[in-house]
């Protein structure tokens, strides 16, 4: 099994498709796991529930996280990730439409590694996504 490179938690299918296209276009990611709701994401990360069989030690290189998710919100996921010793080291990039200061401050308080506001313009969006993919996957040396 190939090592998981990106865990992408996002519920908007259009954004998913656009993101995947952007990443593919720049040949950034080969292995992307997409999860569309917050609860499922937590189960996946901590290998519980539906993902109980998953090897918990197999960690993604980076997590792309939307803030507005069904059931469990992105900020809650971020909080749980950064509170757990086993998952704390995984870089988390918040990828959201929200420019709200409240969201940004909370994200950084929980220890987010990057906060990216999705641009409307597709070129800019595409650039932003591939740039952060490049950075976190290729340039950043993770533990």
């Amino acid at each position, binding site marked *: 099994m190939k090592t998981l490179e990106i865990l992408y938690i996002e519920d*908007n299918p*259009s954004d998913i498709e*656009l993101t995947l296209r952007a990443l593919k276009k720049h040949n950034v990611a080969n292995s992307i796991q997409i999860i569309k709701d917050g609860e499922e994401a937590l189960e996946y990360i901590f290998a519980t529930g539906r993902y109980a069989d998953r090897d918990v030690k197999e960690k993604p290189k980076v997590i792309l996280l939307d803030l507005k998710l069904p059931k469990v919100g992105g900020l809650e996921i971020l909080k749980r990730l950064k509170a757990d010793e086993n998952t704390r080291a995984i870089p988390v990039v918040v990828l*959201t439409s*929200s*420019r*709200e200061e409240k969201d940004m401050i909370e994200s950084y308080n929980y220890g987010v590694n990057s906060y990216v506001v*999705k641009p409307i313009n597709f070129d800019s969006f595409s650039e932003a996504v591939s740039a952060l993919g490049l950075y976190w996957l290729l340039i950043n040396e993770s533990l």
Partner: protein
Amino acid sequence: MTRFKIIQDLSIKNKIIIIILSIIFLIQSIGFTFIAIWDIKRIKSEIQTNLVLNTKLVANNCVVPLTFGDDQQATEALLHLKNIKTIEMACLFDKDGTIFATYPETLNKKDIPIFTEQQNSILEDAYFHIYEPVLFQNEKYGTLYIKANSKPLRIAKRRIIITLILLSIVLDILAIFLAIRMQHYISKPIINLKNHFDKIARNHDFSQRIEKRNNDEVGHLYDGFNNLINQISIKQEERKIAENELHLSEEKYRILIKSTPLPLCLVDNDGNIVYTNDRFTKIFGYFNEDIPTLNDWWIKAYPDKKYREWVLNTWNDAVEEARIEGGDIESIEYTVTCKNGSELIIIIAGITTDEGVLATFIDVTERKFAEIEIRKLSKVFLEATVPTIIENLDGIVQEMNEQAIKEYGYSRAELLGRSIKLLVPEEKHIQADELLKLCRNGKAVRNIEGLRRKKDGTEIPVLVSLSMLTDESGSPIGISSTASNITELKKAETEIKKINENLEERVKSRTAELESVNKELEAFSYSVSHDLKAPLRAVVGFSQILKEDYGTEMDMESNRYIGLIKDNAENMGALINDLLNFSRMGRKELQKSQIDLSAIVQRVKSELQADVQDREISIKIMNLPSINADENLIYHVMLNLMSNAIKFTSKLKNAIVEVGYINQDNENIFYVKDNGIGFNMKYAEKIFDVFQRLHSIEEFPGTGIGLSIVQRIIHKHEGKIWVESEMNIGTTFFFTI
């Protein structure tokens, strides 16, 4: 006369000396002359006697020769004469007068004297001539003549004279010496007296006495003198004391007049103001120099000509009357204008004297105003629309106003002397007593709710206020009691209470509504942030993808449509972003700090570098002062204003954008100026409204929210922002922080 005058002017000492010496000289001269004459006579007769005696001796010796005619023997006899040196010649005549013998033997014929019978002896031509008869037994035999020089007499004379002169000199010296010595006894005490006089005259020191040494007339003179000086010095002392007392008393009166709390002014008969005291200057401000004459006073103190004339006539009449009747000048009230222009009401009175007029001034301005005040107040009291009663400290009615009579229905006579409780229902008597006590103890009793009962028995709700009335010294003399009827007020109050109760509920529900609306709004903007942008992104993204993947298969028109979809969606995204920013700005707390505006402007300039890359544009930035503001927000302001300036100059070839400030009235006014297309100033207010655009999107792109945000930021900083613009000349945005 002059000689005597000189003597008269001589000092006593010299006078005495001269007198003594003169007397001595006189006596001495007389005495010595007498002695000299007498002595010389004696010597002369001695010499003569001697000569006669010798002549007689020789004549005796000549008797024989003559008798015998023996001339030889006669000559020998004559020769004896040679022992007497003075005898120069001798002749012996016989009885007939013929020369018988001579001495010396040979004798010149012409020297022979004339014979004379007479016996005599004379002194002639400095020679003694002696004729002596030669007698024997009373018979005359001849005559002997002897001629002798008077040398011894001359010598004796000289000796006497010299001796006397020497003696004179010695005596004179002695006399001078003595005179000088002796004059002391007389002149010294007198000189002493005179010196004493001089000293006293010079020093005016009458304390010295002259010491008495002798008991003579001068001594008495000294006594008299000392006595006199004593008298003078006593008189002097008395005068000094009197003068001192006079001076003290003058000084006392001078100070009294100068500082008396009553303004005074002294005018002489010529109309000159000769004196004004301190209080005069204090009250009116005029110094004596300001008003040297009465005329100056009239003009300055009564600048109004008509009033001045009245004052002049009134005053002059009053003075005239006082002169005729010899009394005081009548006290009359005048309005005096002070040096500083203020007006005082002054009662001027005074007295007339031979020298002029002494005027006194009494400032009654305050009293006058107080009177007016009291009159006003009593009018207020009497005509007040609130029933007011004046009671004594025990609550006994002493006075009341019209309104009290009208309101309570009692007559004045019915109320006077009765307790205030007459007007209070029984159940409120305790309260009335307590209020009275409070007021007596100096506590404020203001608008206390109470009740009043009218004569007809109806009760009215009132607000009672009690005030202590005091005399000048502050001791209480009575109580003023007002009771305003609050029947209407009470009704209104009940109404208001009801309304208020409703209002409170309404405010509560409104607040709750507002809160929920606010929450909804917040949620709305949050969801706009998230949800509204996602579909836009999808529209933009998929349009792009469509163009990328199938652009070549579609015709031009299709491609254009796709482009339009994308552009509009992007625009909408920008709009949403700006709107969110705008609403965020309203909620955000300012994070003020001292920020370097120049640095911010430089940052903005580099940010905007991309927009001006291919343009001919000069961006001038002044050195700006630091300001106390929110850095992020000010950055936003500058970004917006400068990008606007760059945007609206984009069609110019030589665009100039200038960022600077001016200091006006200690306030820094910052500005961003461009020479762009400008706009009509009638839209100057609109330009800050949300979504307000003055140009089409095609001409100058933008959402129309930027300036609203800028204005909001400036207002949040309690600053001002305004714009000046002219079509095709340029636009300048000014703001203060």
